[in-house]
């Protein structure tokens, strides 16, 4: 442990050099900016910045790229909260409560809890990375297809908490998402499904496109078409900028729970950032003492529903560095491109990395602590400015959202077909709002569907068709048992006359 401490101190000595501090700062600013923009994700940005590895020394470049990676996890929440436009798939859950809060004049606290939660989760995540990376990596490898599939079953079941007031409508939305997720070639055999001979559909429908279409475009159009005609000068209310005592009290436990969910799932190969944010949201929804505040109950937005998923997202980003640095296995597209950056310096991330390039890795880890602090300092003062954005009169605000969404989606692959598709989906979003169907389950279905199909097929292939594999392996079985508990415990308790804090 003392040795780790000394190595980390050595790392800080590297990271705190003015040039490296500057690179960290540039990375954080850039990351925040791209996190804000839908369609342009951290993976693309890191990829575009890779050429600088030809000119900058390894520590500087890697520190900057990690700054981008971290900053994007911060920035993604901003547009989710303010404009209901998730910049990344991992900030979709944030939009649910965050945007509702913003509409009720509480954008400030929502942004603040996201920023502080990200800082706390990120810092704890890096601490865990420093101390337990090899142990976590060994645990993460225990996740094979069977474990993943069981985890996804749990995610599917707990997702009912985002289904909204009517189960039937929620399930209809979820099925729509599952159906959209089937479009394109299946990931195992490459057989095209439901493409209707449209070449653009062969590689599937991007979920950021659907999310932006349903959330942002759908909402903007709905407001234009159906909101009662009021004075065109109406603005959103802005009642408070800072978090109240109560906000703090409700955010703390959510941050910690989010971290506990996000970090381990970040470290499992092929995990992705979406599932931990789903699970965190469901957890907060179930545990909250203020169930009436949640947007699906018609409330004013629950702050724990922002704090949890945002913390989970950032802890996940730290967790993803564990397999990256210890095994050379990327768990996300961005992590994978970071591997490319290492390789450009002829450094191979993997089991030998800490031995061959120790000072560099420790410098990188130290810079993550610094980067986290930088992001907090950078983001907190901006909260006031961002929140005031909502005081723009509604017509201009919604027009701005449409422009913003169009630029982002077109930027993904410069395709006018995508733009057209986004507006079609936007119209579907209007219809769904009109008839009271929740839109979040569509995205959840779209993300979970193809992932669980792939894992199920591989798991059954490994077990030679034995469905009991999901109960024979300890981790998979744990998830299955949890699923069953989540499904039946509330029912049994209710039968016995025990009332839960929420009336479900």
């Amino acid at each position, binding site marked *: 442990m003392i040795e780790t401490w000394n190595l980390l101190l050595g790392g800080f000595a590297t990271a705190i050099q003015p040039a490296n501090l500057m690179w960290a700062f540039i990375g954080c600013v850039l990351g925040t*900016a*791209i996190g*804000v*923009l839908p369609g*342009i994700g951290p*993976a693309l940005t890191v*990829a*575009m910045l*890779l*050429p600088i590895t*030809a000119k900058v020394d390894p520590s500087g470049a890697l520190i900057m790229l990690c700054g981008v990676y971290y900053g994007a996890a911060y920035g993604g929440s901003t547009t989710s909260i303010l404009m209901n436009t998730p910049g990344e798939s991992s900030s979709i859950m944030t939009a649910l409560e965050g945007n509702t809060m913003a509409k009720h004049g509480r954008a400030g606290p929502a942004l603040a809890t996201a920023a502080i939660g990200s800082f706390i989760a990120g810092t704890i995540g890096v601490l865990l990375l420093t101390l337990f990376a090899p142990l976590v990596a060994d645990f*993460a*490898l*225990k996740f*094979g*297809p069977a474990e993943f599939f069981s985890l996804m079953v749990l995610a599917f079941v707990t997702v009912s908490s985002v289904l909204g007031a009517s189960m039937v409508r929620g399930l209809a939305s979820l099925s729509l998402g599952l159906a959209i997720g089937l479009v*394109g*070639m299946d*990931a*195992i*055999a*490459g*057989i*095209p499904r439901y*493409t209707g001979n449209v*070449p653009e559909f*062969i*590689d*599937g429908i991007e979920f950021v496109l659907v999310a932006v279409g349903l959330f942002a475009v759908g909402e903007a159009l709905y407001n234009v078409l159906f909101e009662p005609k009021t004075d065109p000068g109406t603005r959103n209310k802005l009642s408070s900028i800072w978090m109240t005592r109560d906000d703090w009290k409700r955010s703390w436990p959510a941050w910690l729970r989010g971290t506990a969910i996000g970090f381990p799932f970040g470290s499992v*190969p*092929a995990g992705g950032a979406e599932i931990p944010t789903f699970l965190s949201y469901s957890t907060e929804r179930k545990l909250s003492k203020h169930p009436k505040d949640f947007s699906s109950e018609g409330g004013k937005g629950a702050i724990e529903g922002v704090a949890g998923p945002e913390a989970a997202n950032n802890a996940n980003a730290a967790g993803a560095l564990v*397999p990256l640095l210890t*095994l*050379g*296995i*990327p768990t996300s*597209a961005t992590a*994978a*491109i970071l*591997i*490319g950056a290492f390789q*450009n310096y002829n450094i*191979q991330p*993997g*089991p*030998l990395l800490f031995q061959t390039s120790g000072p560099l890795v420790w410098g990188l880890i130290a810079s993550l602590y610094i980067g986290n602090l930088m992001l907090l300092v950078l983001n907190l003062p901006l909260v006031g400015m961002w929140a005031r954005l909502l005081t*723009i009169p509604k017509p201009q605000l919604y027009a*701005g959202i449409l*422009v*913003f969404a169009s*630029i982002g989606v*077109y*930027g993904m*692959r*410069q*395709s006018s077909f995508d733009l057209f598709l986004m507006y079609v989906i936007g119209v579907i979003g209007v219809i769904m709002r009109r008839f009271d169907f929740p839109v979040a389950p569509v995205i959840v279905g779209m993300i979970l569907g193809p992932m669980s199909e*792939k894992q199920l097929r591989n798991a059954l*292939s*490994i077990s*030679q068709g034995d469905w009991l594999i999901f109960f024979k392996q300890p981790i998979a079985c744990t998830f299955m048992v949890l699923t069953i508990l989540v499904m039946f415990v509330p029912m049994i308790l209710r039968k016995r006359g025990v009332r839960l804090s929420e009336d479900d």
Partner: protein
Amino acid sequence: MKTRFSGALRHAAVAVASVALASQGFALDNVKFMIGANPGGGFDQTGRNLGKAMVEAGVAKSVQYENKGGAGGTIGLAQFANASKGDPNALIVTGAVMVGAIVQNKPPVTLANATPVARLFYEYNVFVVPANSPLKSMKDVVEMLKKDPGSVKWGGGSRGSVDHISVAMIAKDAGVDPSKINYVPFQGGGEASAAILGGHVTVGTSGYSEMQQFIKSGKMRALAVTSGSKLPGEPVPTLKEQGVNVEIGNWRGVYGAPGITEAQRKALADAVVAASKQKSWTDALASNDWFPAVLTGEEFAKFVDGEHKRIEESMKAVGMVK
């Protein structure tokens, strides 16, 4: 009011600036690579090393990479053919894996929808087990396979890949019905390595370069390589040396966008050839155990046609396609 608006304007400015940055790929000399596998695998390493060498050779101002994994690279190929029609700066990494996936799955978009540019090198696969596996040699694996074909879980790349074909060929050589093998396809080398390290599959196979860091650090044990003779400087025996009469190589190369002119195609080929002479590229060849085999123009196109036939025949021979 004015100050409030400036916030929104700043927001929009960031948006516009970032998009301008993203669309640089369309300016001349900025080469855009499509890599039809998730990052971390051999396809990925090929694209990134070649891109780096192109920049160093001064034939490309900068390079961008896009990873789109799944189904032997044909999902990436579909996107490539759709999104980069007529783009003289677009390249896609291809190889025997992709040809195999096309032969087996017959996707709507094939290599016929892109323009052949150059073959780069051959590489050979290695069969590995986790360090704590009781299997010590390929003979042990073959015996286990003969006893119960389904009990050996083979992990590797997509269905129809060289990985998959080699497993089917081993089964056939051992007198086991190749349709009985239990092959688990993963997206990209990273996922496959994780599944092998975690013991979720019995035996794994992938390009030697992807596995060598795990072999060298002792986390995996190499059982056999698929080349005709031992790889230079590596002690791992070949399949043939262990009585399994199978030898199979995997080539990689690049294709250009559909609808480019003959002159644009030649310019791309020249750029790739220039890059293949760079030190960083020859270093990459050496460190990954890749064997250079540059071939361009019509000869490359003919070679790929031949590969289609050869792979189709070997797949038919082992019962993978009808």
